[in-house]
């Protein structure tokens, strides 16, 4: 079908049998348009519909860095990619099968990513001289100059048709053309054989959520009506004009039974912290200073007042962690969240929490650095900052979430460890996890860990730094406890008594004790599990948000019969106790990271393993194919062809994306 070039104009000669369904195991669709076009909403509606239909889904939204970048320019393009599948998936997909572009700039920015032979649906109305000019096409039109050769292109006058569709409502032109995205959604819904009423219901439920204020109800009801008209018009257009040569169906995924909801990483993080508060029966204080891409955690937790959650928008990141430490000192869950630049500011305070041995959790939703860097792009370059970025020998626990839904689990785990071991814990997330979504099976209470550890009042003569022999944690005694008045602080502590001490031998002992306490936590962590054989030629070791791409790439390599396994580190300090033996079970180790080789340095230093790195620092997540290619290269395999559902005979996945 790649050779078929159907354009709107060409539709005069109707394709002979245009309505066949083609079965695919997964489909990757990217919506793109101006940041004012409602792209994220469209993507999110389509994702929800896909998830409800039983597909596994994974998404990748991308926003422009500027809030109000000039309309129609490449800088102002916003996009949303969805991968929906009949099998379990872990990535939003490398290259979209289908690109929907609401203007020339969106086409220009995203065309390079489109799969060879892929499908393009574009709003033909926007390709006028002005539109082309703003997108940087001068004197040339990509629709006509051969740029789109080899793709299946559908030129639909989306703007005109949308205005027509909502005309009966008497909206002004600006309001009316805001419904373009819904027309586009209608087209896609038809192409992928979706139920019109299900999507319309979603539009209505969106309306309900927005109309908590009676004053705005009419406005939103009007909007919903217009949106539904445009959506239906798009669907009907596709159904009647017989332009589209093919429709696609994707089967349901075999997901474990249960209740599901779709979560972004930041939502799951917030819910996980809420759960930690509920499970520990301690009130939660979240203090944070707004920063991309972490702000949504603040927004989310601020909605949980009815759970007793206290949030403070602090004056800066130092104040934010200071407030969290104050809460922890008071016997509550002290939490702060930020991105790399904010962590840089918090470092001195983290040291205080280490010295005072107080449980605080610090979330770092990593973004491109250094300095202000790339605020809206993703990166994993704060690993060493989390592990080492403080003055003195200052060990803390470092955890990483590896997918949006996984954030829930790790947020609980962060507090479980913090409380049990009286230590600060870093939880690393990143921009793509934070904004990406996936289905999340909501857990039952019995599936969650217990955090309500017995916290009795110490008997006898209270020693502030007396330690539990097993965990080496001191006891958490908050103000209000009669008779145990004491003073904590950042000055070195006398072992056991906790009094200020400048004694040199004591200092060495305390430094070693603090290190030992953190290292000992490895005994209380799950062992590192390996996807694939327990030994072999190559281990692909990752951490954090690279999980999906690594897993998928290794899966594909295994299908080729290669001796490859994958393992993802959710625990970075300390490492899982079996990491050394896992590493030694493979002839080679590859560590793909979105940084210049931070985990690799740690692995080499600690285990003397000559691990190879695959380092991408473009602000973009890994593509499966990039990792797959590196696996093949390391194993000396070349040119392995495999079919892609949308471009039969074309996709040579092993080598195409270099």
């Amino acid at each position, binding site marked *: 079908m790649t050779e078929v070039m159907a354009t709107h104009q060409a539709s005069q000669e109707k394709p002979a049998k245009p309505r066949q369904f083609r079965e695919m195991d997964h489909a990757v669709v990217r919506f793109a348009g101006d940041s004012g076009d409602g792209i994220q909403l469209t993507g999110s509606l389509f994702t929800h519909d896909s998830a409800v239909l039983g597909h596994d889904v994974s998404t990748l939204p991308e926003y422009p860095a500027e809030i109000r970048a000039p309309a129609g320019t490449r800088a102002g393009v916003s996009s949303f990619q969805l991968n929906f599948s009949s099998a379990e998936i872990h990535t939003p997909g490398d290259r979209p099968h289908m690109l929907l572009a609401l203007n020339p700039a969106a086409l220009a920015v995203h065309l390079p990513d489109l799969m060879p032979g892929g499908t393009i649906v574009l709003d033909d109305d926007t390709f006028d001289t002005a539109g082309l000019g703003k997108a940087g096409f001068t004197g040339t039109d990509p629709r006509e100059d051969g740029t789109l050769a080899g793709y299946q292109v559908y030129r639909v006058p989306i703007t005109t048709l949308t205005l027509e569709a909502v005309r009966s409502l008497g909206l002004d032109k600006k309001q009316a053309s805001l419904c373009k995205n819904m027309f586009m959604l209608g087209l896609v819904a038809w192409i992928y054989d979706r139920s019109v009423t299900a999507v319309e219901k979603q539009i209505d439920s969106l309306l309900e959520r927005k109309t908590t204020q009676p004053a705005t109800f009419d406005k939103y009801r009007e909007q919903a009506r217009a949106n539904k008209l445009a959506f239906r018009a798009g669907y009907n257009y596709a159904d009647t004009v017989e332009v589209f040569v093919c429709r696609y169906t994707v089967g349901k995924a*075999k997901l474990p*039974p249960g209740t599901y909801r779709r979560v972004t990483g930041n939502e799951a993080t917030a*819910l996980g912290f*809420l759960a930690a508060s509920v499970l520990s029966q301690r009130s939660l204080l979240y203090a944070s200073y707004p920063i991309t891409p972490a702000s949504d955690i603040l927004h989310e937790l601020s909605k949980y007042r*009815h759970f007793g959650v206290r949030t403070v928008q602090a004056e800066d990141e130092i104040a934010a962690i200071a*407030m969290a430490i*104050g809460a922890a000192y008071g016997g509550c869950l002290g939490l702060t969240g930020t991105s790399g630049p904010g962590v840089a500011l918090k470092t001195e305070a983290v040291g205080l929490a280490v010295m*005072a041995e107080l449980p605080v959790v610090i979330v770092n939703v990593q973004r491109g650095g250094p300095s202000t860097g790339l605020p809206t792009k993703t990166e994993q370059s704060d690993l060493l900052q989390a592990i080492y970025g403080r003055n003195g020998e200052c060990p803390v626990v470092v955890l990483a979430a590896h997918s949006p839904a996984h954030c829930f689990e790790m947020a609980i785990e962060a507090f479980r460890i913090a409380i049990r071991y009286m230590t600060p814990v870093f939880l690393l997330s990143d921009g793509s996890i934070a904004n990406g979504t996936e289905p999340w099976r909501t857990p039952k209470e019995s599936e969650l860990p217990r955090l309500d550890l017995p916290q009795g009042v110490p008997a006898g003569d209270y020693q502030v730094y007396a330690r539990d022999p097993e965990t080496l944690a001191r006891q958490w005694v908050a103000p209000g406890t009669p*008779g145990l008045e004491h003073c904590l602080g950042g000055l070195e502590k006398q072992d056991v008594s906790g009094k200020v001490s400048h004694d040199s031998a004591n200092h060495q002992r305390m430094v070693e004790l603090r290190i030992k306490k953190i290292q000992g936590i490895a005994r209380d962590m799950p062992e590192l599990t390996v996807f694939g054989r327990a030994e072999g030629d190559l281990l692909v070791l990752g951490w954090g948000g690279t999980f999906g791409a690594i897993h998928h790439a290794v899966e594909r390599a295994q299908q080729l019969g290669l001796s490859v396994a994958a393992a993802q580190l959710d625990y970075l300090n300390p490492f899982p106790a079996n990491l050394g033996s896992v590493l030694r079970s493979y002839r080679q180790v590859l560590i793909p990271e979105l940084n210049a080789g931070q985990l690799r340095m740690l692995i080499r230093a600690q285990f003397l393993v000559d691990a190879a790195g695959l380092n991408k620092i473009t602000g973009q997540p890994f593509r499966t194919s990039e990792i797959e290619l590196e696996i093949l290269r390391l194993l000396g395999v070349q040119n392995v062809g495999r079919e892609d559902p949308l471009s039969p005979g074309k996709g040579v996945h092993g080598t195409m994306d270099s």
Partner: protein
Amino acid sequence: MTSQKYERKDFVAKEEVRWCPGCGDYAVLSQVQRVMPEICDRLQLRRENIVFVSGIGCSSRFPYYMNTYGFHTIHGRAPAIATGLQLCRPDLLVWVITGDGDGLSIGTNHLVHCLRRNVNVKILLFNNRIYGLTKGQFSPTSEKGTRTKSSPMGSIEQPIKPLSMALASEATFVARASATDAKTLQDILLRAACHRGSAFVEILQNCNVFNDGAFDSFAATSVRQDRSLYLQHGRPMIFGANRDRAIRLRAGFPEIVRLDEFPEKDLLVFNESAAHPGLAYMLSELDEQAFPVPMGVFRCVTRSPFGELLDEQIETAVAKRGAGNLFDYINSGDTWRVTAPQGS
């Protein structure tokens, strides 16, 4: 809460006090310990519910010497740490101990925002107009020309006035006392403790090692009566050892008048609870050479503290939506069910 009668000694920690002999900090410690029983009595408070949070500096060693809960934190951040503590534990009486470097240099930001939010903490700023702990560099309150190791030719920086800053930060309780004036200091400490919201108290404290005599020109026992203006709510601002002079405003600016030349009924009356902070600001900005130095409470107004407002929101949310249930919450809204067995 069971009330208990405390004595001064109940607040004296076993810890040996380690300030330089003659340091003004001793006097403050002693007045705080002395007034604590009465504070506990008035607020029906037990000792274990009192916390002193400090930053870094000589003065910030204070919590070690109080037989209460204490937290000696990091430089400048005590107001923020105290904020987190107070919000989570409204049952505690939280004090902040800070210095002119700790509170007005590295930690200015937190001080401003703590006061602006009206967090229910009691802030004692020990102003010795010098960095004591780091051995004598000039501070943000040092007078111009102060010669120190880091300013051998004299400081060229304009000093900041702590009370002016507190007022500009919308503080609801602003007061000043000298460490050497036991009576005034105790009165103010008591009022600060009972104030609803942030209380900011500047305590003039002599560092006899690095900035000896910084306040002698008006706070030395010999001149104190004559050079101080003791503010009294609802009274004219009369001062002097013989109470023969007063402050009044003329064309918007303060001037000193002699009572024998000026009828008392025409004097400006001091009002600490005026909604507008203008009068308090005028007083905090008085040139200390040309005018008497005001002591006492500059401003005391009522505004809901941050913690109370936050907890009111929680109550409102619970009333409106019911107390949150995690498992109901995550299973409501846009969810769908996957049933087993599934697919082919």
